[in-house]
C-alpha cells in the first residue's frame, strides 16, 4: 500500500511538472491555433539559467531556498524575453501563412535553441548543487520531500492564478476575444499583437518555473532535456484537450500518474514480459488512444474547423 502511495506521489509530482509545461502549449494553441514546438526548449533555458545562478552562489553562504529563488528571478525574465523573441521573429511574420509554415519554423527554433544551449553550457550533463535541505516527511508510509511538495503546491497555485487571469481579468477577456476571432477583436479595440506577445511571455514564465523545478528535483540539466519533456507535455495537453486550461492540468496529472504506475507495476503484472523499459512508451500509447477514440481530448469540445 505504501509503495502504491509512493508511486502516486511520484506520479503527481511528475504530472504537476507536465501540467505546468502543458499550459504553455495550450495557451498558445488556444489563442493562435499554433503548436509552439520550441516551448520545451524554453523550459530547458529556464533550467539552465537557474542552475547557473545556483552554481555561482552555492558557496556564498546564502540559504539554499533563497539561492533557488534568485535563480528563478534570473530565469523568468530570460525565458520571457526568449518567448517574446520567438514569437516576434519566427511566428509573427508568418501569421497569415498556411498553418504548416509556422510549424516548421517552430521546429527550427527548437533546434536553434538546443544548439545555442550546447554552445553556451556545453554538452555534458550539469549537476544542480544540493542546496535545498531535503526533509522527507511521511504520509501513510510514503515519503514526500520538501522539494516535491513545493513542486505540487507551486504548480497548483500557478494554475489557479492562470485560470483566474484568463477568466476574470481584462487581459483574459482580450485573450479569449482574440482566440475566437482576431479580426473582430481588433475591431472591438483589442491590440491583438500585444495580446499574443503577452500570451507567449506568460507561457514562457511558466516554462521558466517548470525548468527550475525539473532541474532542482532531478538534480540534473542537459541541453536536449527540453525535447522529451516538451513532447510529453504536448501529449498531456492533447490528452486533456488542447486549448483548454483545465484540460492541460488534468492531462498532465493523468500522464504523470500513468507513467509512474506503468513503470512501477507493469513488470509484476505481465510476469516480466514487459518491464520498466516501456516507461516512455506509455505517454505515446496514451496519445494514440486518445487521438483515435476522442480526438478533441478528455475535456475538449467537439468544434468545427475554424473559418
Amino acid at each position: 500500500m505504501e509503495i502504491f502511495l509512493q508511486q502516486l506521489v511520484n506520479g503527481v509530482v511528475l504530472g504537476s511538472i507536465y501540467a505546468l509545461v502543458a499550459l504553455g502549449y495550450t495557451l498558445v494553441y488556444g489563442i493562435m491555433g499554433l503548436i509552439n514546438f520550441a516551448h520545451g526548449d524554453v523550459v530547458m533555458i529556464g533550467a539552465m539559467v537557474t542552475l547557473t545562478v545556483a552554481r555561482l552562489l552555492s558557496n556564498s553562504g546564502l540559504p539554499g531556498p533563497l539561492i533557488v529563488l534568485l535563480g528563478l528571478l534570473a530565469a523568468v525574465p530570460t525565458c520571457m524575453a526568449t518567448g517574446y523573441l520567438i514569437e516576434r521573429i519566427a511566428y509573427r511574420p508568418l501569421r497569415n501563412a498556411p498553418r504548416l509554415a509556422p510549424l516548421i519554423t517552430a521546429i527550427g527554433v527548437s533546434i536553434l535553441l538546443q544548439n545555442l544551449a550546447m554552445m553556451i553550457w556545453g554538452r555534458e550533463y550539469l549537476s544542480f548543487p544540493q542546496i535545498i535541505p531535503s526533509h522527507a516527511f511521511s504520509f501513510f508510509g510514503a515519503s514526500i520531500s520538501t522539494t516535491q511538495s513545493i513542486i505540487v503546491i507551486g504548480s497548483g497555485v500557478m494554475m489557479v492564478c492562470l485560470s483566474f487571469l484568463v477568466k476574470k481579468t481584462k487581459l483574459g477577456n482580450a485573450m479569449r476575444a482574440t482566440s475566437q476571432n482576431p479580426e473582430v477583436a481588433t475591431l472591438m479595440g483589442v491590440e491583438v499583437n500585444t495580446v499574443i506577445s503577452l500570451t507567449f511571455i506568460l507561457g514562457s514564465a511558466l516554462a521558466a518555473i517548470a525548468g527550475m523545478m525539473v532541474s532542482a528535483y532531478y538534480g540534473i540539466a542537459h541541453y536536449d532535456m527540453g525535447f522529451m519533456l516538451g513532447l510529453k507535455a504536448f501529449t498531456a495537453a492533447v490528452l486533456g484537450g488542447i486549448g483548454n486550461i483545465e484540460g492541460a492540468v488534468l492531462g498532465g496529472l493523468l500522464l504523470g500518474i500513468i507513467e509512474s504506475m506503468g513503470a512501477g507495476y507493469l513488470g509484476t503484472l505481465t510476469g516480466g514480459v514487459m518491464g520498466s523499459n516501456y516507461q516512455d512508451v506509455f505517454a505515446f500509447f496514451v496519445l494514440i488512444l486518445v487521438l483515435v477514440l476522442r480526438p478533441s481530448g478528455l475535456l475538449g469540445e467537439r468544434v468545427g474547423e475554424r473559418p
Partner: protein
Amino acid sequence: MPNRPLFIVVAAILAGCAKHEAGSELVVRIGSVAPLTGPQSHLGKDNDNGVRLAAEEINASNLVIGGKKARIEVLSEDDQADPRTATVVAQKLVDEGVNGVIGDLNSGTSIPASKIYSDAGIPQISPSATAIAFTSQGFKTAFRVITNDRQQGEALAQFATAKLHAKSIAIIDDRTAYGQGLADEFGKDAKALGANVVAREYTSDHATDFTAILTSIKGKHPDLVFYGGMDAQSGPMMRQLRNLGMNVAFLGADGSKSPEFIRLAGRSAEGAYASTPGMPLDKMPGGQAFIEKYNARYGKIQLYSPYSYDATRVMVEAMKKAGSAEPSKYLPYLSKTEWQGVTGPISFDDKGDIRRGTVTLYQVVNGSWKAIP
C-alpha cells in the same frame, strides 16, 4: 551540430599530406574512435586523449619501424555511442587506409564495428569494451586491454555476497550491450553464490527520471542495488535513491567509477561502490607517472584513458617488432604481445581477451573514489 571531430580529421589529413611530400618518413595512421558528443562525451574525450598522449610520446622518442623513421598520426572519429554511427565511422577509417584502430569505447559500438575491421583485416584494440560478445565472434583482428564482463560480473557478485553480505539484490540496467550484458552476468553469478534477485528493472542510456523504478524496488526491500550502465545515469539515480529514503548499498561497475559520478550524485555519492577492471592505477609501475603526465596535459583522468594509452603503445610495439605497419604483417606480433603497461601486464589469449584480467573495487569516501584493499 558543430563537427569538431571532422575538423580535427581534416586538419590531420592536411598535415599528413604536407608531410608525405616532405620526405621519406613513414606515416602510421591510427584511428581513435569514441563518443565525442552526447552524454558520454567526457569519457570519449578521455579515451581520445589517452591515444593522443601515447602518440605524442612515441613520436618524441624517434620511432623507427623496419629501419625507417616513422611518425604516428591519430585520426579521431565520433561514434556518438551509437551502433549505427559506429559502422559508418569504421567504414570511413577503412576507406582512409588506417593501419590500426583504438576503439570503440562502448561494447554496443565495438561489436558491429569489429566486423568491418575484420573484413578489412585491420587490427582493432578496444580500450574499454567489456561485453563478452566482442571477442567471441571469431575475429582475428579484435583485441581488448580490459577485463571482460564475465570476469567483472563474477568479481562484483563475489564482492556483493561475501564482503557486503547482500542476500536480496535489485538489478537495473540501461539496455545497452554493455549494461545488459554485465547485469546479466552479475545476476547469474550472484544467484549461484546464494543471493536472491528480487527485482530486475530497466532504464535507457538517456533517462533522467528513475523514481518510479526505484520506488518499485523499495517495495521489495533489497540490501543492495546494482546498476549496469554509465555515470550519466547512475549519478542522478544515486541521488534519487537517497531522496526516496532508501539507505541500501549501491554497487556500480566500471561505467560508474568516474569523478563525473560523484559530481552528478553530489553528497549522495558517499558510500557508493563501483569496480574497475585492472589494478589501481597509482599502484602500477609507471602509473603515477602516467597520472602526472595526463593531468599536466589534459586535466583529470575520467576513466579509460590509461587503457587507450596502453592499447596504443601495444599496437605500435607490435609494428616495431614486425618491422612494418602493414596490418597483415604486424597482426601476428600483436597476438604475441608481452607488454608491461600502466594498467598492468598485457598479453592476449587466442580470442583477443587480456590474460589474467583483474578487477579492483572502489568506494566513495569523502567525495572521491578509494580502492578497497
